[in-house]
């Protein structure tokens, strides 16, 4: 009786796990400025053009996803006020959340993109925020010919190399994916150089095993060794892990000058930093990429967030003369400070709006096709934006890469350095 019952336990547990995995693809729709879907017939003479926004808007990622979304909303708002599109055309946003149970989710992102594709009023989209989400979205936009610009994806494989080629499944010769931030190969290299400049010689690396986190950590690993540093260990977190004390004890035993983390706050970065206090690593500095550039990192790690460094693959808007008007307008509209990628998403939306406007003009005042918008976005060169003159190369990467490094002191992020790279 007993062993028969036990045997059935295994299969029951399996059923439970499967069902638990299958339920997490819900997405919520939030609309901030009157979303209209294509199915609702436009009022006489007024055509609605929608820009899709896919960002993580709930949970841990919300503290960085929402300010990035807001950049797009501001651009749409301004464009409507300034009549950037000819009379009879109105811009709206169609905003979807790709966070499931508190963290960005590739399956939810893919579902959101399918929603955009099936809505014929959506001519372009901004997003996603996270590289692994982009990984699942690019094949879909490539198939549908829908242009997407990300303000924050930094993984190299999204635009270059074999991986990028594999993502363009339906139309290998067409690129629908662009980004106005720079890549992790540059971010990782800059972080390694910065770590060396701070005098760190031995670093322990931890990553979250995601597309972005592992990619960045691997680059940092290679680059830090290349500048003469020693990597004492390189470990990967497991999704959903909460106890990092054993891992940190192991790290401490090798006496590192700092701990490098490749990943997001939501995938373990905040808790990892917080638990360093419990294993006697209170004074050991912590350094990471743009995945911990969110406010949530400071909330989760509390006082332990002090003494952490991070970079993000965009300029610090407050340091740019060209971005001051944007910052003022952003604060006036949303009553909060700009996020690390708000200016980038604003610029991305501006590029899309300009491409749509040109499309309408070229099409004799009629609604352009998605292919027209894609063509115009791809041709972007020297586009004036708050983050400088930007354009895209043939892979979809920005031609004006800039990185920023910040330090957290007294639970506030302080500007440390801005690195302008040659494209």
């Amino acid at each position, binding site marked *: 009786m007993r062993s028969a019952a036990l045997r059935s336990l295994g299969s*029951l547990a399996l059923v439970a796990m499967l069902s638990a995995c299958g339920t997490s693809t819900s997405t919520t729709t939030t609309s901030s400025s009157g979303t209209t879907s294509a199915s609702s017939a436009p009022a006489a003479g007024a055509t609605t053009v929608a820009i899709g926004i896919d960002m993580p808007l709930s949970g841990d990622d919300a503290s960085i996803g929402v300010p990035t979304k807001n950049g797009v909303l501001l651009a749409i708002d301004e464009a409507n006020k300034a009549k950037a599109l000819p009379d009879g055309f109105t811009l709206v946003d169609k905003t979807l959340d790709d966070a499931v149970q508190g963290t960005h989710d590739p399956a939810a992102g893919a579902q959101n993109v399918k929603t955009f594709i099936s809505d014929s009023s959506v001519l372009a989209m901004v997003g996603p925020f996270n590289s692994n989400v982009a990984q699942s979205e690019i094949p879909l936009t490539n198939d549908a010919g829908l242009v997407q610009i990300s303000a924050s994806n930094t993984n190299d494989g999204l635009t270059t190399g074999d991986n990028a080629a594999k993502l363009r499944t339906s139309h290998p010769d067409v690129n629908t994916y662009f980004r106005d931030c720079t890549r992790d190969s540059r971010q990782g290299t800059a972080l390694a150089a910065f770590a060396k400049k701070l005098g760190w010689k031995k670093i322990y690396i931890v990553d979250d095993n995601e597309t972005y986190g592992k990619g960045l950590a691997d680059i940092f690993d290679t680059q830090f060794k290349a500048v003469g540093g020693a990597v004492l260990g390189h470990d990967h977190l*497991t999704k959903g892990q909460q106890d990092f004390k054993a891992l940190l004890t192991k790290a401490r035993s090798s006496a590192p000058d700092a701990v490098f983390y490749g990943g997001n706050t939501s995938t373990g970065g*905040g808790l990892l930093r917080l638990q360093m206090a419990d294993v006697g690593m209170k004074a050991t500095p912590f350094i990471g990429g743009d995945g911990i550039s969110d406010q949530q990192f400071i909330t989760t790690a509390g006082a332990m967030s002090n003494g952490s460094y991070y970079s993000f693959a965009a300029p610090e808007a407050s340091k740019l003369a060209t971005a001051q008007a944007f910052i003022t307008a952003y604060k006036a509209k949303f009553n909060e400070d700009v996020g690390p990628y708000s200016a980038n998403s604003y610029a991305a939306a501006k590029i899309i709006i300009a491409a749509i406007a040109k499309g309408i003009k070229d099409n004799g005042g009629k609604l352009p096709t998605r292919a027209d918008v894609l063509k115009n976005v791809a041709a972007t060169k020297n586009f004036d934006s708050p983050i400088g003159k930007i354009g895209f190369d043939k892979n979809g990467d920005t031609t004006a890469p800039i990185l920023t490094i910040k330090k957290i002191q007294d639970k506030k992020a302080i500007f440390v350095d801005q690195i302008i790279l040659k494209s």
Partner: protein
Amino acid sequence: MDVFLQQIVNGISLGGIYALIALGYTMVYGIIELINFAHGDVYALGSFVSLAVLALLGVQDEVHGAALIGVIVLTLAGSMLACGLVGVLIERLAYRRLRNAPRLAPLITAIGMSFILQNVMQLWKGPSPVPVPQFIPNPTLFHSGAVEIQLKQVLVVVLAVVMMIALQAFVTRTRVGKAMRATAQDRDAAQLMGININTTIALTFLIGSALAGTAGFVSGVYYGTAVFNAGFAAGLKAFTAAVLGGIGNIAGAMLGGFLIGLIEALTTQFISDQWANVVVFSVLVAVLIFRPSGLLGESLPNKV
């Protein structure tokens, strides 16, 4: 060597949390042979209730002296009581009517309850990890070389062991405990002997869930955060601990919990963090092949 000892300390304190959760799994399974999948979420709820009690008491920072004892007792009691009542409610709503239904039915309602609890917690406090005030000072009690034992680690282990001994005594020494054992052995016969089955089972859920509440309180204190979906992973590990030790056996659940904590910590140190789960479940498979009823499963004939 120091690192090895330190990892043993880490493993035992992590195992203490697993053990506390595993006790609840094992009690419920021992009596009605149901895997209460909502149990892990009751544990997560414990952290949230502790948070709420701390907020009620206005505790935000470290508390010292007699006030500290008071805060610990109140928070722990609040968490145990709330979780215990939720456990009883779950039993009443989702399991009682299905007690004689095919096995799959209560399993599915258990998963349903698990999701309901998760989503209620998510609605209550949002999906981000919520910081729990660090009100217990955490001095290092023992220090030798690189080995440190902190107050919180001792607290986890002491609570787990005390709870286990109390539970064991309750089940073997009291009248109600005897009724539980009788119900576990043969429900119908127990009923014929005049034991109120419904009350006995409800009481089992009350105690098991109160233990999960204890674990929730401890984890909130130990990790400094409460996450709404922490119950799934921890619940699965604790369930594994219960099976490893011999499901239905109180000492076995404890042993299984500590073993899994230790295996995780040592695998992290000597192999890799990523392999921790692989090693844990490999050990489980190996143990079950050679001892299908778990480590202590047969040596003690009395189920809960």
